[in-house]
């Protein structure tokens, strides 16, 4: 905890993130390049053919979409309990990328669904809960933008972030209940062969580094722009 608070200081964060940024950016490029190469050279799946490559861009996006909300929830908790300005910035910076990954997951899922299920959209449990997750992200961002006073906006968004964190599992559960009631399309299940697993894991790591890189850049931008605003106002 002590260590965490040391880096929660904006100056310490700027120094640390400045040093880390080149490495995370390089790791992103490297991992995604390797993952794409591996992904395009896998043998065709016996059932899905070459469309299986879609998995390597789709699944990591969906995973990151959920992880980004976890980041917002944790940052909101920190912001409400310890009132730390950096956690507000961290929560706010994560939201657009979370929404972006959710949208990417939906779009790639739709492109994958067309050849596999023969339809762009299916009211399936996972698709529906992801669509709702996208709306949750949009509402969260809208609240941030709507309230002008920055500290007020931060605390309101933190409350909403935690309410969402409680509610999202319930939404997921209810949507699953809904699809079993309506006998929805079952997702192709089964164990993943190692040939497919490795590119997927590499791509997931690549996406994770991509998120961390973009997230750090966004936090740095916000810290710098706040500094610039204070300077312009002639404040301390």
């Amino acid at each position, binding site marked *: 905890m002590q260590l965490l608070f040391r880096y929660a200081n904006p100056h310490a964060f700027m120094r640390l993130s400045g040093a880390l940024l080149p490495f995370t950016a390089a790791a992103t490029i490297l991992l995604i390049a390797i993952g794409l190469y591996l992904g395009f050279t896998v043998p065709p799946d016996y059932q899905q053919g070459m469309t299986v490559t879609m998995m390597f861009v789709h699944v990591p996006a969906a995973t990151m979409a959920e992880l980004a909300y976890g980041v917002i929830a944790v940052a909101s908790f920190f912001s409400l309990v310890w009132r730390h300005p950096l956690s507000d910035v961290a929560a706010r910076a994560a939201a657009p990328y979370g929404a972006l990954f959710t949208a990417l997951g939906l779009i790639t899922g739709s492109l994958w669904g067309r050849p596999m299920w023969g339809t762009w959209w299916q009211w399936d449990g996972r698709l529906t809960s992801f669509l709702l997750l996208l709306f949750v992200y949009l*509402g969260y961002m809208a609240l941030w933008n709507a309230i002008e006073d920055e500290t007020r906006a931060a605390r309101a968004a933190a409350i909403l972030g935690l309410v969402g964190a409680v*509610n999202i599992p319930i939404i997921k559960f209810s949507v699953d209940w809904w699809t079993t009631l309506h006998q929805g399309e079952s997702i192709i299940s089964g164990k993943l062969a190692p040939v497919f697993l490795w590119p997927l894991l590499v791509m997931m790591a690549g996406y994770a580094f991509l998120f961390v890189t973009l997230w750090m850049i966004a936090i740095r931008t916000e810290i710098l722009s706040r500094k610039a605003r204070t300077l312009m106002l002639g404040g301390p």
Partner: protein
Amino acid sequence: MSAFRALLGRDLRLAARSGGGAALALGFFALVATLVPLGIGPDVKILARIAGGILWVAAVLAGLLSLDRLFQGDFEDGSLDVIALSPLSLESVALAKILAHWFSTGLPLTLISPLLAILFNLPPGPTLVLFISLLIGTPSVSAVGAIGASLTLSLKRGGLILPLIILPLLTPAVIFGAGSVAALMDGMQPGGGLILLAAFAAAACLLSPFAAAAAVRLNLGG
């Protein structure tokens, strides 16, 4: 307790006398229910099939109508500051507001729903399930709505952002409520959905006063 009752009574009188909030919500509810058959066609089989879903969606939307004024009026004229200074905790204030909102929207909507179910040719059994589901489910609309109302109470145009925040969080209520009606229509037991709906509503009513109070507190600058 008497302060709680006084606040509840005041909000109910305000809802009843200032332009008829309850009548407005009822009119909206009935109008949506009338527009749907006009859009879909008069086929009674289809209408009976979708009645549960349509009436549930309409009830949630009608509940949203007066939600943005839940705290805003009191915030603007300063009475919210006075209420906050009273010995009543803000959590109890939020609960009183939620109750008053439910009494003036959710409850009237529930009471009128069997009448609209007749228009949709819903059989008596599913109508009873719809009635019960609205009775136990609409408090969650007021409760979750109170969170959104308190978060947006300082905004001039909070009414626009409120649905965007609230509707995704209310999907479980719509799913379980309309789902239990649909379950009985399909010859299944509606009990499971009703129990889950009751659980969702209970959790919402229990937790939302705390979230709403926290949001009111930050907007009062405390």
